[in-house]
């Protein structure tokens, strides 16, 4: 089975959010007819002052929040709970249609596009597309 992956190199991310922008436009009902990064299936987590930039791709939908919580420490600063989580989950607004929060947003790797749109529009090279074969 072919597995599609996007490798994220957070150190190259410039925080430009072109990935969010094009993802939202690509997934419009009529392709590209609207732009709204709040509908994107990728979200760039930023903490400008501490120089932390992490693109997070929307993962699975979950209808209950998780019970375990974690923190991540980067350069001595602790980031709580949900900062880098990929889930569309009841505790937060991220990765849901803004006007219909019951609809979860999930990265679909842009379906049949030869290259995922976020990868194509990431001029900084923070996102790269890798396919690998895996026994099913």
């Amino acid at each position: 089975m072919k597995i599609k992956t996007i490798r994220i190199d957070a150190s190259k991310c410039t925080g430009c959010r072109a990935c969010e922008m094009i993802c939202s436009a690509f997934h419009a009902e009529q392709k590209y007819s609207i732009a709204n990064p709040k509908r994107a299936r990728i979200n760039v987590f930023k903490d400008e002052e501490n120089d932390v930039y992490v693109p997070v791709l929307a993962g699975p939908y979950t209808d209950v929040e998780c019970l375990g919580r974690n923190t991540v420490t980067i350069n001595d600063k602790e980031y709580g709970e949900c900062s880098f989580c990929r889930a569309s989950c009841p505790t937060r607004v991220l990765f849901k249609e803004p006007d219909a929060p019951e609809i979860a947003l999930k990265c679909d790797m842009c379906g049949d596009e030869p290259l995922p749109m976020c990868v194509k529009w990431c001029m900084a090279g923070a996102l790269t597309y890798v396919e690998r074969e895996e026994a099913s």
Partner: protein
Amino acid sequence: MAYGWVGGSLEIDLSQGKVEKQQNDPGLYQAYLGGKGIGTRLFRDKAPLEVDPFSPENLLIFATGVLVGIPTPSASFGTVSFKSPQTNLLSYCAMGGFWAAELKHAGYDTVIVSGKSPSPVYIWIDDDHVEIRDASHLWGKSTPETQAAIRQELGNNSAQVICIGPAGENRLFMASIEHGGTNSAGRAGVGAVMGDKNLKAIAIHGTRDIDLARPAEFVELSEQAFKRSETLRDWVAIKNWCHNYMQEHMDWALYGNADDMPAGSGFERYGEICREFVDRSLARELSCYNCPVKCKSMVSLGNGKYYPVKCQAWMAFTLACKIPDLAFGVKCFDLCVKQGMDYISTARTLAFAIELYQKGILTREDTDGLRLEYGNAEVALTLIAKMARREGLGNILADGTNRAAGIIGRGAEEHVYVVKKLELMTDSVYNPYYAFVTATSDRADLHFGTVALSPSSWHRERDAYIEEGWWLFPQSWRQYLDVDYSANYAGLAEMTVYGEDTKTFVDLAGICWFCTGFWPFPFLKIGDMARLVSCATGMEVDEAEARKIASRTRTLIQASNVRLGMTRRDDTVPEKFFAEEPTQRQKELELVRLDRGQWDKQLDRYYELRGWNSQGVPTAETLDELGLDDVRQDLEERGIL
């Protein structure tokens, strides 16, 4: 249904605490698109031009660019239009980042702020919910602290915040509006006007769609531009700059009050210093919304903190204080960002004060005991902080060099380098083209094509540069590049008008000027931007129409400012550039003393091309042709036309 635009605006009266939502007039937006075009028009419609800049009647008009918030390369800008306390003219600042897109996604192309709040407030715009909130607890806070505190109290980490710092609260003429650590609306006192209104910040969160009229075509054009952007992106990369161009940039960045760089000052190895610095300190390259060009950076100084760096911000201070240490420049810029100060005017004012001290015009009695000597980092940082607080000498300098010279007297006036009372960005103005665009610009700044004319190795072979289509101007104008400025200024007016139309259109569209002609290798030219505007909005705009739209805005600003008393005599640079021989160093850079005869000829030609009379007043025919008949009538009634 609106395409490109979102169709709504906010009018917020801070005196009454009143918020009104309005539907925009599509005809108005088609005529001016957005940015400073809309800002200028609305200012004229809603306030008397003669308004005292520090009165509740002055307006701050935040207007987004029409191509912002959609997948346009490098389009993140909005402008702020206001009456400037520094120039006493109608002015504007442009600012990139993420705020303008967020505002459109909240449903507003434009926000008009009037009045004055009785106590400190900030505005919270969350889609339909608009609220004026108390900001007493934020007063006095630095700009990063303010942005963080607001996000935290709103519980919204993706809200975009623009705010003033202590400098804006203290109404410094050099006070800026800051956003996100690396973006500023900096010039002409915009932050002072915000402070005068007791408005600490605007926080924005928007979740709405923006629709595109011809989406497939739009994205195809954008993708082509992204492709073309690679040349500029690589050229401007901070490592490339610091490794290859800093020495040359330093040589070119003549710096008024600190022009001479005596041997032994360390500046002869500036290039090397920059190379070492960037290799050691670069932490990350940054971009504004949807921009492939990484023109900003974060550097680390080894103390666990990160500092923003952009354009010549760090360089300016090293030159002003003759301290060839980039860490010093970085700290000064960081202080400006935190206090909310325009680095251009701040650095120039610092250089001015040090020169006056060196010349004995200022003494230790005037400087609260500070020794304003070159090479003294501590004193420079102290003085910036004193300016922000309006303390002692800082209070005299807080409103820039022009006002300070008036207070100090004793010949200080001769050391002022301003155009229309605004500090010059650089004074490579012995280059007639630099000088001319600055003198005629609608805000006394450099604009387009400037770099493209420098006798510099910044681009590859000049002919190849033109043949590959990078040159900003029509190819048939290449003979202007061979003009010997010591003999004549042929083509100056033509190129200025063309560059100015491009720059104006850039501001209306909300694109970054660094990507469109200020630097070499522009990947969007006026024709490309016109096509993008067409595909976004459904209007039909070609290059000719784009230039007409740009001229309408330019002429409206001119008509406003001549009504405020600006005359032909103001369209000039400081007299010393005409009167004094360039220094040895300037001559080595092929700079020449400006020639008043040639200058006047080009000024006549510039006015003629613009459709203005010999005094710079737009003619009745021009105003009618641009659909500005109300402005014609106004000028006629006042006897100006």
